[in-house]
């Protein structure tokens, strides 16, 4: 086996490239950490970069949620994967929600629902009323309220979600 001399600046450049692609800030020791970090880089597949996504199905009816993510985002949207039964105002089913971090203080929830009475409404969070969404590098969590009732994820209904 041949041995080679490599400058530390070149190793640093390679490590920086791995960190950038892998979305990590960890210190990497050559060669084991380099190998491991490269293996952890998600494989491409035509998806959008910088976007997390998946499905979410609550086990029990809930007005709170938490989804694991691979990076810090500032927006999330949930969309039901099938048409949900119309609900009356006594219990509002989440049909669409978009939340984003507007500033260090506020996380806004923008929630749109239509009922069988064509009573479309918009509910907006203002920091400590109607719920909040918290964005971290590993999870996005939050809660929702609706007009005159608590909006929630029904048990067993699957939502598609995207975060960016």
């Amino acid at each position, binding site marked *: 086996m041949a041995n080679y001399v490599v400058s530390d600046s070149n190793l640093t450049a390679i490590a920086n490239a791995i960190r950038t692609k892998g979305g990590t800030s960890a210190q990497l020791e050559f060669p084991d950490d380099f190998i491991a970090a490269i293996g952890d880089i*998600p494989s491409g597949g035509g998806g959008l970069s910088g976007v*997390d*996504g*998946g*499905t*979410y*199905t*609550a*086990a*029990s*009816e*809930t007005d709170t*949620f*938490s*989804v*694991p*993510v*691979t990076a810090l985002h500032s927006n999330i949207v949930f969309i039901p994967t099938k048409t949900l039964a119309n609900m009356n105002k006594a219990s509002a089913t989440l049909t669409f929600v978009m939340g*984003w971090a*507007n*500033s260090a203080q*506020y996380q*806004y929830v*923008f929630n749109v629902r239509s009922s069988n009475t064509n009573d479309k*409404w*918009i*509910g*907006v969070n203002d920091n400590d*009323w*109607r719920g909040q969404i918290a964005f971290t590098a*590993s999870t996005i969590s939050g809660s929702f*309220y*609706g*007009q*005159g*009732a*608590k909006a929630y994820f029904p*048990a*067993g209904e*699957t939502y598609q979600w995207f975060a960016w």
Partner: protein
Amino acid sequence: MKYVKTVADGYILAIGTGDAGVEITEAEYNEILSVIRAKPARVGTTDYKLREDLTWEAFEVEPEPDIGPTEYDKAEAYDIMVGVES
């Protein structure tokens, strides 16, 4: 993409798919999903939450808060949508 579950305090809160989270097999995902979709119906203030062993535990639901409606005109709604703080 992998199958994942969210667990807290011995209860399964949700399942799903994604690139992060506690990974489970597709078979486990389908098993949990079938249990979730066979959840006992809520009766009055008694609802059920799912234990990690896939059995249901009854609990009392807290009363819903009385939240009044907030109405916005189009300009206010637009500002909220684009992120203009009031």
